[in-house]
């Protein structure tokens, strides 16, 4: 147990207890104490780098297992359909998926339906893929198809033929000269699609236009706001789903727990979840205390 965690727990416990005592005594706690308390909770958690081991929920675990259970050398397509505003939430997911698939020696096809996704995709390749997997060879182990206009229309086309939409990859190399495309003609030759994104086109479009029609398993990663709208597709149309920072954090913990090589990897989502979890606990404590205070006061009035 670190000093930081102990300090924070003592702080939160003490604070909650104090507010509880005040409330039970029938004194309304000044909201400034509540403000100070929630602010300090988040600040402490950040300052002491507090993090909790997230255990994957079934829906995230299912995504993890899907990649885990593919045979070595399977073809996996990752779509980066997001913009910088969504990056903090879904960026960590992209890093995880790249790490996991390459560690499993799958072949990676990277593409994006968002103009703004292009730069983010390149960043991920430069910052994660190249330094961590120097052995991965372009054209044999991964390929960057880049961005094409057309939204779900692009999906429609690549469902029957990659070359019709992408005569070349993002660097202008003809697809036919890339070894990865020897056996891959269309999306139907892909073993798994991972769609990362929170807008339109995004996971929903991949499910409707590729998953349903081509019968290809899809794993999704989205911003938290969109996730509830996608739950109805799980587990039949979506094999697994990562919702927001929490989903990303769960995946990070699965990865660090199962792979020695990722033990010390950067885990931005887990880092974000420390303050999140503590703040949630505090908010829940507030709801409970508020109700205890309310019932006490009603009892008193009853007498």
């Amino acid at each position, binding site marked *: 147990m670190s000093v930081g965690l102990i300090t924070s727990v003592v702080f939160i416990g003490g604070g909650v207890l104090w507010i509880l005592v005040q409330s039970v005594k029938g004194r309304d706690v000044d909201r400034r104490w509540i403000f100070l308390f929630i*602010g300090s909770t988040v600040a402490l958690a950040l300052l002491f780098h507090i993090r909790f081991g997230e255990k994957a929920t079934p829906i995230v675990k299912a995504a993890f297992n899907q990649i885990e259970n593919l045979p070595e050398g399977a073809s996996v397509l990752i779509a980066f359909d997001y913009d910088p505003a969504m990056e903090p939430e879904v960026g960590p997911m992209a890093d995880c998926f790249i790490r996991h698939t390459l560690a499993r020696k799958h072949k990676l096809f990277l593409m994006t339906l968002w103009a703004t996704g292009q730069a983010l995709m390149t960043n991920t390749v430069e910052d994660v893929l190249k330094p961590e997997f120097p052995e991965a060879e372009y054209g044999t182990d991964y390929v960057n198809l880049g961005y094409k206009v057309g939204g779900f229309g692009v999906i429609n086309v690549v469902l029957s033929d990659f070359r019709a939409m992408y005569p070349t990859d993002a660097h202008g190399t003809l697809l036919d000269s890339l070894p990865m495309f020897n056996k891959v003609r269309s999306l139907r030759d892909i073993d798994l699609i991972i769609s990362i994104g929170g807008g339109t086109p995004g996971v929903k479009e991949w499910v409707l236009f590729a998953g349903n029609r081509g019968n290809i398993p899809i794993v999704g990663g989205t911003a938290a*706001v969109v996730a509830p709208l996608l739950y109805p597709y799980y587990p039949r149309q979506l094999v697994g789903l990562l919702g*927001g920072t*929490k989903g990303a954090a769960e995946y990070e913990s699965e990865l660090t727990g199962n792979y020695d090589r990722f033990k010390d990897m950067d885990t931005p989502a887990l880092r974000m979840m420390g*303050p*999140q979890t503590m703040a949630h606990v505090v908010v829940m404590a507030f709801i409970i205390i508020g109700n205890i205070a309310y019932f006490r006061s009603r009892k008193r009035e009853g007498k």
Partner: protein
Amino acid sequence: MATGNGNRKSPSNAVKIILVIVAVVFLISWISKATTGMADSTWLNIRDGFLITFAAFLTLSIFSFLYNDNPFYKFAEHLYVGVSAAYWMCLGFWSIIVGNFVPHASKTLSTFFKVPFQEYSWFYYVAFAFGVILLMRLLPKAGWIARWPLAVIIGTTAGFNLSRYLHSDFMSQVGNTFQPLFVDWQGAGHFFSNLSLAADGQLVMSAGNWIVVVGVLCGLVYFFFSKEHKGMFGAASRLGIWILMITFGASFGYTVMGRISLLVGRITFLFDDWLSIL
């Protein structure tokens, strides 16, 4: 209570001292930021040091509102209002007037603003004329004529939204509710022999659909205006309001995470970008 800030007399010595302390703290921050800066030139370091310090000062000024209204918040608020109002006006001028209107109205102006001329369009002149009419508001006698552009806009809004809402919020939502009440039905025998309360089991999934259908119906009953909510109708309306309450509670709970992220973002800015202690 925060409401009880009372009638403090004119700025006391304490307030002055606080002002001085704050000024000194941020001055020190500026100097230290400027001296530890990484930019190429001293001038850039001084500038960036100031900008970061100023942004931190504004951030803390807004946070100080949580304690009480105070001169720092007032300063930040007034600065925010002035700067942002001008920001939007400039954007409106450059993107709409120069970006859309000028390329359709005048070759000379297009050349002046260095935007490619497109083609003359009478429509833009009409819009321009109505814009001028709106400004008649400034004249006491002709103010009433300014209602014309408002009438055009409100007419457009009413007409267009009528069909659009009926399409996306009425037809589509009614259509989305068409779902079987039994999921994956393979006969009663199969249903009962596999009965379980598993989250992905047939019973729970079917119950979900029942709740959606009954919930939508009862929710609609709640909104009925011209029928007294009594008897069966009253019961349905009561169930309707419960469903609405679950909706509100669930949305509230779900949003908390996003809101905390915002705070994490600001505190990270203060700790990392400004104080460099993370």
